[in-house]
């Protein structure tokens, strides 16, 4: 895993770090408390508490290997697929613990969707890509409903006008930016509450990136978005709150404008002024 860190010490030896800024918000969509994540005996996330507010875009920034992707992937339990990964602490979605044994992980992932770093449409038609989620979750009863969901999802992902005449064309035949917007359309087709985005623009050119960023801003009306990014400009442009991660710790979190113009912690300041990272 690229998120492995070298801070492989046990919890007892470490002083508990207190995050600078305000990690909590009122009426959070998701609230994470005292989260620790281990890969075998390596600790990737140390004692992080953070709230994700409703209809906000929160961005996670930090140098490589700081645990921001790991953090994101625990929010819809994508890490379950890694045998050696262990998660401690509580993560609540609308007050319900998502690691509760009563909660079905399949249902959780329908509520918390994900968009990955590399555009990964299925090797199927554009239509089938978007229709996949509604189909497996049984959200539609007939073809007309499905058509409607596909159209609205593609419209929301501002892809409809580009692909409406070739819905049967393979999703893998489009440009990188279109593919990523298709992945976003696929994710929103099941009407999730939260969308997790793991560096969604890192494989795209600036024009495609600008389109996605615009899209993220529009999607904020209906969805809560947590985005991991390497680009500080992107974080500044799209997010309302920014969290700075360093070596598995959440160093600082606050309003994006505050974090970028007036960082409190020395590490944050070093990072955003480009002294490392």
């Amino acid at each position, binding site marked *: 895993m690229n998120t492995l860190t070298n801070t492989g010490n046990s919890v007892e030896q470490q002083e508990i770090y207190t995050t600078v800024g305000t990690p909590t918000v009122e009426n959070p969509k998701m609230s994470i408390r005292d989260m620790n994540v281990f890969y075998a005996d390596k600790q990737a996330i140390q004692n992080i508490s953070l709230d994700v507010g409703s209809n906000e875009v929160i961005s996670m920034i930090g140098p490589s290997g700081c645990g921001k992707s790991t953090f994101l992937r625990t929010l819809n339990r*994508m890490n379950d*697929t890694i045998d050696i990964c262990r998660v401690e602490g509580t993560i609540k979605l609308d007050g319900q613990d998502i690691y509760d044994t009563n909660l079905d992980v399949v249902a959780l992932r329908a509520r918390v969707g994900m968009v990955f770093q590399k555009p*990964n*449409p*299925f090797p199927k038609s554009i239509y089938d890509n978007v229709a996949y989620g509604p189909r497996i979750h049984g959200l539609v009863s007939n073809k007309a409903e499905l058509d409607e969901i596909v159209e609205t999802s593609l419209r929301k992902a501002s892809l409809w006008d580009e692909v409406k005449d070739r819905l049967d064309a393979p999703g893998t035949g489009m440009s990188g930016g279109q593919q990523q917007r298709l992945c976003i359309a696929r994710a929103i087709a099941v009407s999730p509450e939260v969308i997790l985005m793991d560096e969604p623009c890192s494989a795209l050119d600036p024009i495609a990136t600008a389109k996605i960023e615009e899209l993220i801003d529009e999607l904020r009306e209906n969805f809560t978005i947590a985005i991991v990014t390497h680009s500080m400009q992107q974080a500044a442009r799209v997010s309302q709150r920014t969290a700075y991660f360093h070596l598995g710790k959440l160093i600082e979190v606050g309003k994006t404008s505050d974090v970028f113009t007036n960082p409190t912690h020395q590490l944050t300041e070093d990072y955003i002024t480009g002294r490392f990272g």
Partner: protein
Amino acid sequence: MTDQNMNSDKSQRSSFKIIEANLAKRYAKEKRFKALGLISIGFGIAFLLLLFSTIISNGYTAFQQSEIQLEIFYDADELEITNVNNEDEMLEADFTGLARDALAKLFPEVSGRKQKRARNQLISSGVDIQLRNLLEEDPSLLGKTKTVWVLADDDIDAYMKGHINRELPEDDRRIKDFQLVWIDTLEAAGNLKLKFNTVFFTHGDSREPELAGIWGAVKGSFYTLMVTLLLSFPIGVAAAVYLEEFAKQNRWTDLIEVNINNLAAVPSIIFGLLGLAVLLGFFGLPRSTPLVGGMVLTLMTLPTIIISARAALKSVPPSIREAAIGMGASPMQVVTHHVLPLAMPGMLTGTIIGMAQALGETAPLLMIGMAAFIVDAPQGIVDPSTVLPMQIFQWSDSPERGFVERTSAAIIVLLCFLVFMNSLAVLLRKKFERRW
């Protein structure tokens, strides 16, 4: 400052010289390597050509068969047949006598027991079956005369194909001088000809080369391979999917993986011994049957299929799995909707190559009695039968000239099947391969 510049300039120039001097060496190395590669490919092709040319030059004659034209008079009195539909009468009737009468009419001058016997031996001993079948097909023939091409004896056939040299002293050849006279007469009258050998493709095994064919072995191979395919494909794919997609990586799965890889290298006769001891000995399944043969070959091909299926599953990009999991697909849905369709071409290729391997396998089947002499083509998976490579093995053991060429001809047929199966594998891979 200038000093430094000059220094670096100098070192640049000298290192450039070294690189230039080395370039020639590097290119020479590359050329040598290319030449070696070409030589080894040349060797491979040469051996392949040698193999094909010997087999084809030995075997092509088997696709022709000498036949003699006779005027057969279906004499009801001599046959003692009153009703063609009476099976007993038909079975007891002396059809060989009809052919001998026809021969006697062609060569009435022959006298003496020895010569008469030699004359009767011009035609194959299977002539009675041929004549009986003709009468069964057309009962109105009784009492009439019909011109029939009957199979010539294998010695005549060998002579016709140039395998017997008439310049040799009479004692050194299988065809005597007086027989040569008959042959010349028949040939001159157009009554002895090489025709396409349908018997080879429609008959089962026989002790007489001119009556021996591969149909029984082909059918046996078909049934055996069907059993193998129906057992090994589902089992192999299921095992591979479980190991690759569901099983946790631990000591047990490592152990299983090592053992599967080892099984792929176990000599195939060991599987035959296992089949003999367990399937025949313990479970008492019928011996010499495609059922048991297929089960033994399943054991043999399973490792190949599992290994290739796992490789195919591994080659499915993880991003597809992640995408499906991220959409909330259950592990089973991830496999059936995305991973399996993408891995299927690779799995099919591996399976067909495993099947081709099984088609050519002899040793394990030797142990379970498929080396028996079986004349009738099997009618199902529990009929005793033999398989193509086994037929080749048995014929290669026979001294008759006719079996020598039939051995090579059967090898040609087997190779054709193998080429067909391998091209099918390539085609399937091309057709179902999807890019992502």
